[in-house]
């Protein structure tokens, strides 16, 4: 009851009496890192970025970047933004909204030029780096959408991992048996819903602690799919575990846009459904009557109930919808990414999706970008280890998580869950 009134997007209201020095300090720290690293310690070589993939119609020449001037330029921009942010804060004004994003982009560019220039192999495929990032991000995006749908009605969804894994398993088996990829996709969605039904029944009807139900479901799906994999799938993989792959659909004209065209517009249907799901979820949640009801159930179920919204029905409904989305995302593993199911192949990505959702402030669009950032950081670590940088491998492995901590602590601001998240609703 004491929670402040918030805008529909869930941002905290501006408090103009308190000056928050957090952002300028973070900017300053990283500007110093940039100055010492990218500028003073620039490797003095050039870094080459290939921006055309083999099958592009228009072949562009690789971009060759001298590390010293670019390093200095990036460091100076970072310093300028830090100074500007100090002045803004001093004057009691808030930073413009584009600033953290611009700062992050300049920092990443500076870092890339510095690290590639200093590597054993100073030539990197930029297209490959970005394409791999998107591939790594697809299941995370579906998973975080599932989380958003479920948590916006107040049901904590730890079971994303289980929904993805169940989807991957069902897609592989159904597509193998039927020989039809679309049957596989349908089965994946249904499997995700089945996991969600258990989550919904136990957390909404039987009021079990939602986090515990979620964790238990993950263990259950892992055990069940692992058991079936050992006893059925691996005995006769030709029948049970050799699904066909989804065809790649190329969108004419758009696919020829340099760099991004081939990445965004040469996708399978699951990839395009992902874009659609992000947009539809966003519009649905924030610009429709349905979305208003859903959010009211997650923020203040009692008030929603008094207005005649069926709280538990809405909750169950949304949790299952989330399951369908995550299940569909699971089909990406076995129908797009690789061509068979193996034990625990989701490898904890459901939990990363959960982090992306929190990082994205329970908002589909921001969760989408958060997942892309995770994908980028993960693939960047692989690419950097290939190039042979002086940075030790263990540090590179930390990259995605360091990025998260910095971004969540510094640039995102307060991440506030729906007020009734995790609280079962008991009428009476």
């Amino acid at each position, binding site marked *: 009851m004491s929670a402040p009134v918030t805008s529909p997007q869930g941002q905290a209201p501006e408090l103009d009496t308190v000056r928050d020095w957090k952002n300028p300090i973070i900017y300053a720290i990283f500007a110093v890192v940039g100055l010492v690293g990218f500028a003073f310690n620039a490797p003095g070589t050039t870094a080459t970025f*290939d921006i055309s993939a*083999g*099958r592009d119609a228009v072949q562009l020449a690789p971009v060759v970047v001298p590390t010293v001037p670019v390093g200095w330029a990036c460091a100076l921009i970072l310093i300028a933004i830090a100074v500007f942010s100090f002045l803004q804060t001093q004057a009691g004004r808030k930073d413009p909204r584009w600033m953290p994003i611009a700062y992050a982009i300049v920092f990443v560019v500076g870092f890339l030029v510095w690290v590639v220039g200093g590597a054993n*192999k100073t*030539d990197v*495929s930029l*297209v*490959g*780096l970005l*394409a*791999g990032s998107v*591939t*790594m991000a697809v*299941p995370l995006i579906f998973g975080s959408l599932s989380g958003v749908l479920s948590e916006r009605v107040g049901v904590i969804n730890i079971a994303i991992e289980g929904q993805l894994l169940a989807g991957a398993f069902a897609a592989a088996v159904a597509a193998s048996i039927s020989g039809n990829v679309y049957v596989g996709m349908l089965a994946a969605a249904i499997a995700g819903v089945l996991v969600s039904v*258990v989550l919904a*029944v*136990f957390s909404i*009807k*039987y*009021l*079990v*602690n939602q986090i*515990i*139900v979620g964790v*238990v*479901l993950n*263990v*259950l799906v*892992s*055990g*069940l799919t*692992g*058991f079936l*994999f*050992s006893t059925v799938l*691996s005995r006769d993989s030709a029948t049970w575990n*050799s699904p066909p792959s989804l065809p790649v659909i190329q969108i004419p004209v758009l696919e020829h846009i340099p760099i991004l065209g081939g990445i965004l517009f040469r996708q399978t249907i699951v990839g395009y459904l992902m874009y659609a799901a992000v947009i539809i979820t966003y519009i649905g949640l924030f610009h429709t009557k349905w979305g208003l009801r859903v959010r009211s159930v997650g923020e203040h179920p009692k008030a929603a109930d008094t207005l005649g919204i069926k709280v538990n029905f809405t909750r169950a409904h949304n949790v299952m919808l989330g399951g369908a989305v995550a299940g569909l995302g699971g089909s990406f*593993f076995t129908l797009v*990414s*690789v*061509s*068979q199911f*193996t*034990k*625990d*192949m989701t*490898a904890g*990505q459901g939990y990363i999706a959960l982090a992306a959702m929190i990082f994205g402030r329970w908002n589909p669009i921001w969760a989408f970008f958060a997942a892309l950032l995770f994908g980028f950081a*993960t*693939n960047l670590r*692989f*690419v950097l*280890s*290939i*190039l*042979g940088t002086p940075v030790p*491998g263990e540090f590179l*492995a930390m990259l995605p998580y360091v990025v998260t901590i910095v971004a969540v602590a510094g640039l995102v601001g307060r991440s506030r869950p729906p007020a009734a998240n995790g609280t079962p609703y*008991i009428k*009476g």
Partner: protein
Amino acid sequence: MKNILSATRRRASVGAAVLSVSALLLAGCGEAPQSSEGNGNGGGGETKAANSDYLGCIVSDSGGFDDQSFNQSSYEGLKAAQEELGIKIQEAESQAPTDFEPNLNSMVQSGCDLTVTVGFLLGDATKKIAKQNPEQNFAIVDFNDPEFTDNVKPLVYDTAQAAFLAGYLAAGMTETGTVATYGGVKIPTVTIFMDGFDAGIDYYNKQNNADVNLLGWDRKSQEGTFIGDFENQSAGKTNTANFINEGADIILPVAGPVGLGTVDAVKEANKSGKDASIVWVDSDGYKAVPEAQDLFLTSVMKGITKSVKDVITADVNGKFNSQPYVGTLENGGVSIAPYHSYADDVPKELKSEIEDIKAGIIAGEIDVQSDASPEQ
């Protein structure tokens, strides 16, 4: 109000109980120790009957017995012993490191004569349980420790020797002048492949004045590309695509099932005009992954199945010893697979050079160094 509250509590506790019991039951399905009778049907009835009270056991690491890798090979060794000797066997799969000791203890309590533990990761658990149970014998695959008691036989493999041959072959076969390798997790049984592969490429460069480049592993700094687990196939695929983008055309994935991601990445790259191939590890890829037979240049194989079977046979005959078994090119414990689909593509000279190098390694003239090589 009180009624509602107590009703609520009742519902919650019934729900929790039902849910957790069912989860435990299902999660337990995969790991319950199973016992099966020796099914030696044909011939040699008498010796088999004599062995039917011998119990051979096995505990996997979290990969499980169908990992198309060392757990599976070890299990096949035990199965082969069961068929040949008519012994009884018992198995337990570990889902997580916390299962290692309980699984080993349950084997000890079942009265196993010899328990095979699979993998580096079970090293500590095996050491501890073996020390507490000196009456029973143990054999551990892929790990050695000087502190082992004398009821433990380590089975280790100098994989670097075979990987050296594969590295030389890959360097001779690459058309882009770049080859690549990556690992699942940075542990000695993985890096030994990468070390040997790297050394083989260096040797090729020196002998032929060539400049073949290896991505993903640096033998000197012991740094390279690792996925971080043995499960995330998508990461294996993306990572392999990265290698191909950077110009590699022969890839050595040392990552168990994650290597299947490499198979998909190479398939896709070849569809769009590349000509990439794979060197598989542990077992012969041509047999282990039948749907991609045309992609395997060769495989770096460890004779785990045979050595597991041998140690059980020795124990059945009362000849168990704790002397470590070290698989080498010389005793056939490590080897490279036939070229299969590439038999016609590998030039004759290269084939004979590889035979010469193999002889050189066996004779000790060529030194294959790896930090991870087992002591002989």
